[in-house]
């Protein structure tokens, strides 16, 4: 093994910028962008002493697609499909945030049935997103089997959503003033059947996976995030709730019909990877509760408000916050009165959550860094946008 020679990496700006630190006998290691546990195209430069990490620096931009710029080139309607591509696992939440911001800007009232449908599909989507995270995280920890059980459950959700939206991943189901189409007749019973199935599976997952000694050993006390640190880095969602703060946009700034629904916000005070794990697995259950209530309260009526063919919101700006599976999404839209937005700003929770990683990974083992990275629940396209 040769000593690290920065000139070997000439032309690779990220690597050259990452100069070796003062420690001796260290190893500069580029983890990613093609690495099994960086979930896509995240690249992390590591400075290692043996297997201990002295320094970690994430490098972004491998899947930057200029969504915010694209918003300025398209009409309000045309930009909606982009939102599903920002975070492919939680297209509904992003759709909702954008639709909500534009509705606020243009003063569009959403019919009650549409609000209920939005809650149901968004919660279904949250469950499917958490299931993917659950499987992928355990894959990071070396357990191969759970991801197939997670995908087996997720398949049911995707089938339901496919019949509702015609799409399995990037739905674009929301439109300004409601949803694109009404739900099929068997939608409600299928949702209830799914929540029943999910609830029957959860005890098995708890017994076989969550209570496993090896898993506990890999997660407990790893990547402890204090409340103060979480606030300074702007961490939201399960990250913040795993640090003991009962912060949830659905409760703090209720949107849709969340203020009419009764649900628990799971909070764990430890702040380690296990706390984040437990928050997310508990949220599978609370989402099932929400779906049950929303399906029971689903009213009749129109599924969308009448909106003009060409939407020209009045001059001004509006933002809309949504609690996604990964944290708080904020979409801020500014209008100059034309059919195209003047500026759209997307606040992606993963970006803030990832920034915590540098602090958490300092001084831990490489295997723990993988565990921490997995517990952040990152979707890289959302970070780069």
């Amino acid at each position, binding site marked *: 093994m040769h000593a690290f020679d920065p000139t070997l990496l000439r032309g690779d700006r990220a690597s050259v910028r990452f100069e070796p630190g003062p420690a001796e006998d260290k190893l500069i290691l580029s983890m990613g962008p093609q690495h099994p*546990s960086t979930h896509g195209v995240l690249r992390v430069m590591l400075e290692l002493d043996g297997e201990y990490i002295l320094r970690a620096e994430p490098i972004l931009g491998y899947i930057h697609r200029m969504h915010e710029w694209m918003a300025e080139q398209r009409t309000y309607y045309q930009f909606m499909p982009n939102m599903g591509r920002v975070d492919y696992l939680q297209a509904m939440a992003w759709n909702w945030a954008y639709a909500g911001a534009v509705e606020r800007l243009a003063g569009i009232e959403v019919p009650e049935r549409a609000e209920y449908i939005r809650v149901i599909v968004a919660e279904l989507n949250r469950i499917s997103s958490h299931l993917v995270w659950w499987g992928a995280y*355990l894959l990071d920890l*070396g357990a191969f089997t759970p991801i197939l059980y997670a995908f087996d459950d997720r398949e049911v959700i995707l089938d339901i959503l496919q019949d509702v939206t015609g799409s399995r991943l990037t739905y674009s189901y929301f439109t300004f003033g409601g949803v694109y189409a009404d739900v099929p007749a068997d939608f409600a019973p299928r949702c209830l059947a799914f929540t029943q199935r999910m609830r029957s599976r959860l005890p098995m997952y708890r017994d076989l996976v969550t209570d496993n000694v*090896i898993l506990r050993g*890999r997660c407990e006390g790893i990547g402890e995030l204090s409340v103060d640190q979480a606030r300074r880095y702007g961490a939201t969602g399960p990250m913040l709730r795993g640090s003991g703060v009962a912060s949830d946009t659905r409760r703090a700034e209720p949107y849709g019909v969340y203020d009419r629904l009764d649900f628990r916000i799971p909070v764990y005070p430890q702040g380690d990877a296990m706390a984040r794990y437990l928050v997310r697995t508990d949220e599978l259950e609370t989402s099932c509760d929400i779906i049950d209530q929303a399906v029971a309260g689903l009213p009749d009526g129109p599924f969308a408000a009448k909106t003009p063919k060409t939407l020209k919101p009045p001059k001004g700006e509006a933002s809309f916050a949504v609690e996604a599976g990964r944290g708080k999404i904020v979409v801020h839209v500014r209008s100059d009165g034309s059919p195209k937005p003047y500026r759209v700003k997307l606040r992606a929770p993963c970006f803030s959550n990832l920034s915590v990683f540098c602090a958490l990974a300092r001084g831990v083992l490489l*295997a723990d860094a*993988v565990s921490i990275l997995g517990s952040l629940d990152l979707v890289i396209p959302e970070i780069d946008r």
Partner: protein
Amino acid sequence: MNLELLLRLDYPLTRLIIGLLGVYAFVGINALVLVWVERKVAGHVQLRPGPLHVGPHGLLQTVLDAVKLMGKQLVAPAGSDKILFWTAPILAFTPVTVCFLPLPFDPHLAPIRMNLGLVLILAFSGLGTLSLYLAGWGSNNKWGLLGAARAVAQSLAYEVPLLLSVMAVAFTAGSLDLYEISARQGGWPWQWYGLKNPLAFFIFLVCAVAETNRAPFDLPEGESELTAGFHTEYSGMGFGLFFLAEYANMIIVSGVAAALFLGGWQGPFLPGAWWFLVKIYCILLFIIWLRWTYPRVRFDQLLNLSWKWLTPLALLDLALAVVVAGFGG
């Protein structure tokens, strides 16, 4: 050297050559079957059928995969040490075949019967670690280097309790000959050393999983951490030999476990070799089942388990076995 002497079956060299050929055939066929079994078990554990379409229930899938591996280009990365890089996979596989020689499949079916068979197996299986280290070092890859360092530390930590647990059985049987040790046990489970000394059996099984680098102790590969660890840079048959060696190693540790703890070839109704195979496959299925159930442990946890728990327990077990053997014998 005259030809007539060479062709006599009891001439040691002839016996060795025939034995080696038999071992190669046995390892080759069993590795193919074992990979298929592993994928089938993994499939059924994971709610899917596993290989299904090539041959009956996908039986020929692994044969095709092997052919594919052989057809692939062998690539050595720039800056690698070519000699070490290509020595490593060969070195991984060769000692494995030697380890098969003293295994008694049957009272009359052991390639070579020797009174120090157990020592031979333990000595040669230690060579496998060297090949992992050479592979990681020679490929000039940082992931490979980390995997190699892990492999050495891990095999060092687990060889100690493994040897101690084996020694306990050797003391009880009063022999290092695998044939002798098997013969001392009977055909029924209560006559097996595995039940007479369950602690040694347990320690041996855990160490065997760790020594063969199988999950949950597959840290030298650790694919979610080290991409592929020591064999990151290997392609084609270079990788294929490591793969083959892993499965051959599994068969050996299972064979040793069957001979030491499960009464070897002895059992009712069936002829000996079949019982031996049945016992080997039971242990193999257990190892496979472990892999598809548990997450991977962290490195310090792995070493803690060995030095803080298994080694003291194995020492205690050895002391007990010596006392019992001393008073009983």
